[in-house]
């Protein structure tokens, strides 16, 4: 089979699965939907692996293949084709997406079992995977935009999955609106690039990028503007400051959704986009710098908010934001391979953490508040183990996967010198914060005195609340639609969940071994055909910085964990004192740096005011009174005038007739 055939198969399976499940909504019995969904994604993963192997058989310089299914529109100046680009980058992403998705489908198979929307959930989930793979495999800008928008739509559907929850629906709308802002940026950015290249195809664009957009061409400014617009799209999708506010709210969705979309796949689309566009970013370094700086800001902001957040899933969400900040910073600074490496390991350990969190939340009967948790260590040993592995990987403790990938990003950033050293420092501060808040979460949930739910679980019974309430606002909720349904599923009692989490746990441990400094660089070799042309060296030769970074990373991670242990296990009174001591700072962090309020003030209120003005003033005065009223008044006035002629007096009509005849005759007389 041709390598592009594999590519089309990757797309075909999730789409077919989604359609099959959606159409068979009423007919599918029991867990059939989940089985179909899981196997569809599994087949897609196998196709991705097949494509990967096939790609390795090909000569290195011809490992970028565009497969065209058909021409969508091919006219003068537009070449919109249904085409996919199969190369190591897209196949790596496809493997990650399909692989993690398979495990999450497996997890959902039991986790979502008691939900009324079981079938709907898998249909959505397959649709999401299809969209994400479309985005990843897209061979031109058009298909990229389509995939990008589909992903946003799928995200909306899944965040609002429990549609009886007002918080869920508003969160879905928020995510969708911000994503659409990003979509607009993407479309406009594409236009800026397309205007000069005249082609939508990626490879053709890249081939003529230097010529069209080089510093001598005079189009460099347009390229920078276009790339910054593309970055708006990337930031919105990847939850970077200031477009990040939707991500924490997106935790209203079911936990597998959080694991899949808002940790492992969708939010990494921005990273992928920048990596995909690297030939353009290489030409417009100022746009790349914007990405790097925004990534650094995001990782710091998210880390600080994570310290103050009390909602279990939101803590993980902020850590996701922060990790994506690393990746964006990395791709912005030219560390493409390292960022994709981190993207991969992050997908493993973050999905693992979310799955474990889902298990924990199930044990808490839907409660997500860290303040109410405690002492689950004995009750949930498997979940605890997963949390620990995920936490160690996230914090960057050797030899877990996060350690290698994060340090590689920071190494290359630091190696570039100059002001990049500032980013380097920020990265390490962020690493320390990551260790602290991750382990704060773990210690608070699993150590200390067991909470009632933990005790109940130790007795062998999963807690069920008498009245289900929405953890976000305390509303009593409809158990027909909405977590936790009738039953709760925890990893300890469910084999599919354990399989999925166990696989990810293993990957989170060993995932980093594919690229150990000085030892091997498999990933770099694999991706080399894609990034061969970039100017930034993908493997640092600066040994001193390398070993310093590794050591510093290890020390900071361990110090962070130790600090967290000290604060939340050995001396539980200390955090309260610190909170009082730095009250304003805590308030700032707990209120998420007031980004929501800022957006509300800067964007929402003016727009709402404009809408009110339009509705109340403009609509009433201009449209209602002047246009509509004026038209009717005009018609009324003219019809009144005509009506006055219709007096009903026969002789008046006759007089008019004669006058008309006389006038006509007079006219002709004067003409003659």
């Amino acid at each position: 089979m041709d390598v592009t055939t594999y590519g089309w198969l990757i797309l075909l399976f999730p789409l077919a699965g989604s359609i099959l499940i959606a159409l068979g909504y009423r007919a599918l019995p029991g867990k059939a939907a989940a089985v179909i969904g899981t196997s569809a994604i599994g087949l897609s993963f196998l196709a991705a692996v097949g494509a990967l192997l096939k790609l390795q058989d090909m000569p290195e310089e011809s490992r970028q293949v565009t497969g065209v299914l058909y021409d969508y529109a091919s006219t003068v100046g537009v070449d919109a084709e249904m085409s996919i680009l199969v190369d190591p980058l897209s196949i790596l992403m496809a493997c990650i997406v399909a692989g993690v998705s398979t495990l999450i489908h497996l997890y959902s198979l039991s986790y979502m079992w008691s939900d009324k929307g079981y079938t709907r959930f898998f249909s959505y989930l397959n649709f999401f995977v299809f969209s994400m793979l479309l985005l990843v495999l897209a061979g031109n800008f058009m298909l990229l935009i389509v995939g990008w928008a589909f992903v946003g739509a799928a995200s909306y559907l899944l965040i609002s999955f429990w549609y009886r929850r007002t918080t869920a629906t508003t969160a879905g709308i928020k995510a969708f609106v911000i994503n659409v802002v990003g979509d607009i940026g993407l479309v406009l950015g594409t236009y800026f690039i397309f205007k000069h290249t005249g082609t939508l195809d990626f490879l053709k664009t890249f081939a003529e990028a230097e010529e069209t957009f080089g510093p001598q061409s005079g189009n460099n400014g347009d390229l920078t503007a276009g790339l910054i617009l593309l970055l708006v799209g990337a930031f919105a999708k990847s939850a970077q400051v200031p477009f990040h506010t939707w991500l924490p709210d997106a935790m209203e969705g079911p936990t597998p959704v959080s694991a899949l979309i808002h940790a492992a796949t969708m939010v990494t689309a921005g990273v992928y986009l920048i990596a995909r566009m690297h030939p353009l970013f290489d030409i417009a370094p100022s746009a790349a710098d914007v990405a790097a700086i925004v990534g650094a800001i995001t990782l710091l902001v998210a880390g600080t908010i994570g310290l103050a957040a009390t909602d279990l899933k939101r803590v993980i969400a902020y850590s996701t934001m922060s990790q994506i900040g690393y990746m964006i910073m990395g791709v912005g600074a030219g560390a493409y391979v390292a960022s994709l490496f981190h993207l991969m390991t992050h997908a493993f350990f973050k999905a693992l953490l979310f799955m474990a969190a889902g298990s924990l939340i199930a044990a808490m009967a839907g409660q997500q508040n860290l303040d109410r948790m405690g002492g689950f260590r004995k009750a949930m040993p498997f979940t605890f183990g997963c949390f620990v592995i995920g936490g160690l990987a996230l914090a960057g403790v050797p030899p877990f996967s996060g350690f290698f990938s994060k340090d590689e990003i920071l190494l290359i950033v630091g190696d570039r010198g100059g002001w990049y050293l500032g980013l380097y420092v920020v990265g390490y501060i962020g690493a320390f914060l990551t260790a602290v808040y991750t382990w704060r979460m773990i210690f608070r949930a699993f150590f200390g005195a067991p909470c009632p739910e933990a005790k109940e679980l130790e007795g062998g019974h999963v807690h069920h609340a008498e009245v289900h309430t929405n953890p976000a606002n305390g509303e009593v909720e409809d158990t027909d639609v909405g977590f936790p349904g009738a039953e709760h599923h925890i990893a300890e009692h469910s084999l599919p969940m354990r399989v999925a989490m166990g696989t990810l746990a293993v990957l989170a441990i060993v995932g980093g071994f594919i690229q150990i400094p000085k030892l091997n660089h498999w990933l770099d070799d694999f991706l080399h055909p894609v990034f061969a042309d970039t100017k930034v060296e993908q493997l640092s030769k600066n040994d001193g910085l390398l070993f310093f970074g590794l050591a510093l990373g290890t020390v900071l991670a361990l110090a962070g964990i130790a600090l967290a242990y000290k604060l939340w296990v050995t001396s539980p009174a200390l955090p309260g004192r610190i909170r009082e001591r730095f009250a304003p700072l805590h308030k700032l962090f707990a209120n998420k740096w007031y980004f929501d309020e800022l957006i509300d003030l800067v964007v929402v209120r003016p727009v709402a005011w404009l809408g009110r003005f339009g509705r109340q003033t403009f609509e009433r005065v201009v449209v209602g009174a002047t246009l509509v009223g004026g038209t009717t008044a005009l018609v009324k006035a003219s019809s009144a005038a005509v009506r006055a002629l219709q007096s009903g007096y026969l002789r008046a009509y006759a007089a008019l007739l004669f006058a008309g005849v006389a006038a006509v005759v007079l006219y002709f007389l004067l003409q003659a």
Partner: protein
Amino acid sequence: MSIGWYLAVSALIFSIGAGGVLVRRNPLVILLCLELMLNAANLALIAFARMHGNEEGHIFAITVMVVAACEVCIGLGLIVAMYRRRLPIDVDEMRELQG
């Protein structure tokens, strides 16, 4: 006698008829005035026929007479019907179709 004189008489009769239509209110008299106007036209037609030495104008005049007869028929029928219904025989009173 030159043709112009006949035409002048025709124009005069036509104008008198038109004025009558405008002034009178009795539908019966209005019908009579219409007859005047039609006859004025007939006179002009005959005069032109004479001028050209062509009898087709006579045919036209006869046709006009037929039309006038029809009109009288219907008009008088309406007047009779109005009378039967005890309606005022006055065109100014019949203005149901006003706007």
